[in-house]
């Protein structure tokens, strides 16, 4: 694969940049590398992708534990997309499958979101997924495989009840043939309502991501997430989730209005990402960033984490970013350092072409 990248000299301070053709330790060609050498590093490197395809990102960084709580133990929303709508009987087996989790614990994979508390027993999620993250840009009339699951946490012991929009099998997330559909329609389009289709109208403007419904959602048809996948739901008073959506030039917006007789969610985020690595596209939008549940231990102290991800990038110019915080970096480890030789972030072309399976709940 031919790649060319260039470097924003003014941004490179105390940073080792691996130029074109260099090989990282794993033998793969690196498109861009930022090696963190000190506290308070704040730098970016430009790179170019010549052809659409999958690329590997590795980020070795400091992530602090909070009171760890798996996502499914708090109120959380799972979104599942089968973009080509091939109804494959596996999920993740095709390159078009995507899953996203949004939790009150603050860990949300590649999703921009806002929560808004609406009193003692109600709140709203408003989520935004870029087309980059979804891997495709729809046109009016497109039909994607789609489903969503809502985990209700009432503070009971064990795994809590969960509800889906369409699927009725608790393991539906492994089988996209069980998904319902999301149909992208133009603005103010009249449609005949169907149970297995969530109509998503086009809006000319992005809603403000603030947890509140605004005009952009005006033409969306509401759907309830009310199929009990497991656990005991005690009727509408236990938990009601109403979903509306819209799409714009930027991406897909999904708004969930939640009424719950017992609101329980993690009081604090499950982690604090204190060294941050991310990728932006030409418009400055984030196309990839580190999130907590991706990260695995990188030896040494528990805060040393590494993320290895494979992402789809369209041809174009990008920037790789890394910011380190006030402490625990190669010039002054606070506690035991990571075992990896590399600390920072890098993007490289994969040798193998099989995409990894998407993250599953």
């Amino acid at each position: 694969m031919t790649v060319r990248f260039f470097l924003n000299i003014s941004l490179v301070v105390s940073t080792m940049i691996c130029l074109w053709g260099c090989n990282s330790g794993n033998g793969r060609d690196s498109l861009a590398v930022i090696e963190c050498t000190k506290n308070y590093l704040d730098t970016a490197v430009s790179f170019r992708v010549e052809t659409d395809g999958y690329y590997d990102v590795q980020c070795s960084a400091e992530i602090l534990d909070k009171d760890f709580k798996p996502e499914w133990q708090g109120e959380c929303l799972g979104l599942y997309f089968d973009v080509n709508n091939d109804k494959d009987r596996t999920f993740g087996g095709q390159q078009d499958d995507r899953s996203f989790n949004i939790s009150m614990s603050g860990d949300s994979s590649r999703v921009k979101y806002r929560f808004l508390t609406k009193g003692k027993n109600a709140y709203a999620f408003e989520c935004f997924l870029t087309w980059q993250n979804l891997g495709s840009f729809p046109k009016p009339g497109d039909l994607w495989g789609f489903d969503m699951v809502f985990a209700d946490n009432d503070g009971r012991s064990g795994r809590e009840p969960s509800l889906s929009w369409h699927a009725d099998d608790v393991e539906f997330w492994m089988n996209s043939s069980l998904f319902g559909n999301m149909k992208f329609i133009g603005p103010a389009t009249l449609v005949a309502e169907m149970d297995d289709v969530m109509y998503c109208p086009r809006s000319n403007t992005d809603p403000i991501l603030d947890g509140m419904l605004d005009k952009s959602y005006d033409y969306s048809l509401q759907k309830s997430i009310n199929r009990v996948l497991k656990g005991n739901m005690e009727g509408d008073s236990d938990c009601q989730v109403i979903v509306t959506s819209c799409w714009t030039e930027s991406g897909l917006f999904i708004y969930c209005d939640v009424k719950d007789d017992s609101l329980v969610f993690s009081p604090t985020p499950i982690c604090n990402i204190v060294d941050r690595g991310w990728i932006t596209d030409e418009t400055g939008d984030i196309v990839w960033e580190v999130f907590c549940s991706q990260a695995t231990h990188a030896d040494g102290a528990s805060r040393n984490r590494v993320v290895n991800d494979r992402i789809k990038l369209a041809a174009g110019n990008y920037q790789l970013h890394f910011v380190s915080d006030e402490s625990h970096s190669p010039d002054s480890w606070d506690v035991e350092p990571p075992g990896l030789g590399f600390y920072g972030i890098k993007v490289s072309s994969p040798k193998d072409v099989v995409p990894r399976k998407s993250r599953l709940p």
Partner: protein
Amino acid sequence: MPEDHLKKKAVLFLIENYPLDELDQFDKKIFLDNIELSFVAWKKPWATSLNFDQFKELILPFAMEKDADNVFWRERFLKEFSFVEDSLDFYREENSIRSICRIVNIAMARKYKIEFGSSIQPKNLMGWDSIRKGDCQSMSFLTLHILRSIGVPVAEEFTPHWANVNGRHYWNSVLIDGRYYPFIGTESLPGDLKVELVDFTGFCQKRSKVFRRTYERNKQSLFEVNAQLAQPERIPRAYFDSKYIDVSNGIIPVKDLTIDVNVDRSNLFSYLCVSSHKNWAPVSWAKNANGAARFSDMRSEVVYLPAEFKNSAFSPIGFPMILQKDGSVKTLAPNFKALRSVTLLRKYPYDETNLIKIGDSYLLSCWDGSGWKELGSKTATEKVISFDNIPENGLLLLQDLSRGKQERPFTYTDGAQYFW
């Protein structure tokens, strides 16, 4: 060096730097007890590697105060926390000072806690004994005394004003193998504390400066330098204290910053201020010389207002300026000939309550060199608010006239607000 000789040095050090405002309460017995007990602490296994200079600053100084039973607090804490030495057996894999902080934190948390916003704060150790809760400054005072009593070399550090949010902050730092690690009693351990913790949106509270309290008077402090002058000038009350040193360099990213000073000005000193609660608060000072004032170790990527102190108040002597990452300076002089429209989302970077609220009245102002010049006010009809004819390159301030107090200056670039 014989212990008696060291004790004499310790006595001399304490007397030379004894707080003048406490001389009338001087208690000879407590003073001598403090010397003896501090030497007991210095003999603890984790303290023996400290040299005298470290000992005299990090172990020896202690509040000359007794508890309700007339027991010197140093003696009481030494007994109360004597269990620490035995408990260390459970933490053999860890640095012993870090383990002691861990053990003491657990013990402290059973009795004391940090609580912000309370109008009653413990002013001394007796106060802590009765109130049992206090803010970060009070907690750093208590933690320092407990740990020093058992021979842990600990100091108090603080930032007088955050650089990009309102308020200030205090914490402790402990010397481990020649390096200071910040921590907060009852809450965090050395090596774990992030003073500038980044929230999940990426926003980070920046320290404008980092100072470490000392017992020794700092001869380079403004108070001492001014006192040496034949004709001292009036200095701000914040600088009456000379017992601290600037340790910013090495802890936060810093650059030196030189400003031009009109040679006709009579003032001997200039100040750099950051925004704090709608006012400007000094974080550094420099002597004026040859039409300039050079400020050392200033936090980069911060907006400073150069000022002088006259008639008991700060007066600006230039436009606000951004000290950039590379050390260059960007002056924020508004251009009233180049006007544009701005669309604003919030008035402060802190939380959801700072967003624009429909129905509230907002006032937008711009720093014009001498003060906040009002540019216009209007009532919000949407969750964003727009103003026309706003000068480019200005430092702006949006106030909610209907409610709230949280406001912060910002610049407006590429359609986005950057709070300073």
